[in-house]
């Protein structure tokens, strides 16, 4: 991977939340992120896929600087972000945009669309004329046109899809290099979903931005990202180019995820799908060794339940953390 094309690098990123059990009990940790490393290139999109509680939202928030990592490194555009000074942090915040899951909750109900878009620019001291220009440009780009019709509307006057466009316009308004979109379409209808994702894809290409698309829905990843990273219980278990992963998933968990999603077909109703038993583990006391081993049909006794699997590059650009693919174990 050409070094200069890399925008964001994570190295062994951890986020542990401490909780106390009982009043005098000892402190235990919820290991929401437990050693995440990856590189994201400029202008590319990653889909971060996993079930609720796997740490994908925590990862997004930690990258954005909304959560302080417990340890590890975040390197953005060559600069170390964790524990950096205020000035660098302010610069970093301008480089990143956030698109939340619930657009209505993400927009202040008492502000007009114009004011919502203006706010980040006022904070970052953009002058008035430029503010106006950028608002017009942003609303045009998210296709809320004619712009005049939307400037003075309040969030409740917009449909869910339009609200999400405002959230996207706000995330884009400071010309960031990285957008983190956390389940941006899960609350929208199927057709509107595709519309919003198509829009995000277009903006990504137009401005050469990188996107981390956090989702539990594998089916939307294919057309809207270059990479899929699969997360399970605080760790990334597989990374690969989208089509490669969808065609040839390696990790038993990725395989299970893929097999669970139906394509519309009348034969589905006669098929009982094979699924891994049980549910994801607690992050307070995750299983020893591979975290998926209690649910895995390919478990190798004495190995998977003892030692954590290393990440290996199985094929070019296709990484997996699973003992099944380790030659010398």
């Amino acid at each position, binding site marked *: 991977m050409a070094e200069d094309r890399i925008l964001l690098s994570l190295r062994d990123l951890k986020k542990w939340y401490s909780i106390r059990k009982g009043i005098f009990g000892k402190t235990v940790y919820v290991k929401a992120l437990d050693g995440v490393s990856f590189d994201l290139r400029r202008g590319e999109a990653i889909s971060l896929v996993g079930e*609720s509680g796997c740490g994908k939202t925590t990862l997004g928030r930690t990258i954005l600087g909304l959560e302080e990592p417990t340890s590890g490194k975040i390197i953005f555009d060559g600069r170390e972000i964790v524990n950096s000074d205020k000035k660098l942090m302010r610069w970093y915040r301008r480089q990143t945009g956030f698109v939340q899951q619930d657009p209505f909750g993400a927009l202040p109900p008492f502000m007009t669309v114009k004011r919502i878009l203006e706010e980040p620019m006022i904070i970052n001291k953009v002058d008035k004329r430029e503010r106006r220009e950028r608002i017009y440009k942003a609303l045009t780009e998210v296709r809320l046109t004619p712009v005049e019709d939307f400037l003075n509307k309040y969030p409740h006057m917009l*449909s869910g899809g339009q609200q999400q466009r405002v959230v996207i316009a706000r995330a884009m308004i400071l010309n960031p290099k990285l957008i983190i979109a956390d389940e941006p379409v899960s609350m929208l209808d199927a*057709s509107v979903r*595709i519309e919003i994702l198509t829009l995000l894809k277009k903006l990504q290409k137009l401005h050469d931005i990188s996107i981390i698309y956090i989702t*539990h829905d594998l089916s*939307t990843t294919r057309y809207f990202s270059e990479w899929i990273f699969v997360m399970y219980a605080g760790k990334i278990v597989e990374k690969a180019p989208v089509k490669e992963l969808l065609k040839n998933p390696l990790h038993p968990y990725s395989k299970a995820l893929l097999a669970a999603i139906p394509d*519309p077909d009348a034969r589905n*109703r006669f098929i009982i799908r094979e699924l*891994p038993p049980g*549910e994801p583990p607690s992050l307070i006391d995750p299983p020893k060794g591979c975290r998926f081993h209690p649910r895995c049909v390919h478990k190798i006794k004495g190995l998977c339940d003892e030692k954590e699997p290393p990440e290996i590059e199985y094929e070019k650009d296709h990484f997996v953390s699973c003992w099944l693919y380790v030659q010398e174990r």
Partner: protein
Amino acid sequence: MSFLKVEDLYLYYRTRMGTLQAVDGVSFSIKKAESLALIGESGCGKSSLAKCLMRLLPRNVELFKGHIYLDGSDLMELSDEEFRKTIRWQRISMVPQAALNSLNPVIKVGEQVAEPLLIHKSIDKKEALERVRELFSLVGIPQAFMDRYPFELSGGMRQRVIIAMALIMNPEIVILDEPTSALDVLIQASIMNMLKRIKRESNLTFILITHDVSISSELADKVAVMYGGQIVELNDAESFYKSPLHPYSQKLMASVPSLREDKQPEYIPGAPVSLINPPKGCRFADRCPFRTEKCSEEPPLVSLKDGNYVRCWLYAR
């Protein structure tokens, strides 16, 4: 012989903006043990149709008329009291949308599920709990969970409890309103597996309401596509998923991102039609790529085989 037959059903709401035509002349019929999927975008009237069947109506109803024949007798002729005593939950029951957090937090789930048996059927508690135990194994809840409280259960398990509640009175029809939309894919698939097993092993008739076309194909023998308060296509699953007829059905299908095929999903331009003062003629006309002048007139119901139909001028002879 149809088991449930709905004929010319209307449900209008009074709102400050005017009359909202949530269900506007809906007709369909299903056989016993047949499953119907009701699909469409938010606000198309699917949940309102479920409210009609359960007669769980809000206070601002302006118009509620038509016929709902269950096994030949018209439920619309029953008084509210008769409906409550003999139909709702006993013959037609429902898993409401987003019900995950509606369990009573201070009662053990086994007892919560048993409650209607104790109230409606004169059986003792031991017997009722025995019935719940059987039901729990049917819906895939471990026996030990009988004595747990809702907060001790995961989302998937709570949804199974709610499904058990809908089944406890031994109904003939169960309406499932978005039963898996708040759940993760693996849990979603395991709940669909469970429903498929129940369907295979019993005589239950399911009505599955969902906006997710892929999920609908997990259960549907028959599909009804709703748009703007009307059913625009009623078709058998085999024909529907292979070649949907109504332009809206086709567009809906094209918006489904396929995991396995290289097919760019498309979105439907424009916004869903308003149910307050909807336009005359075909309600989808404004977004339809095949629109002709005729479409400003009310489209005919073109009959297909087995009482199925499509509401579109394209197929009129």
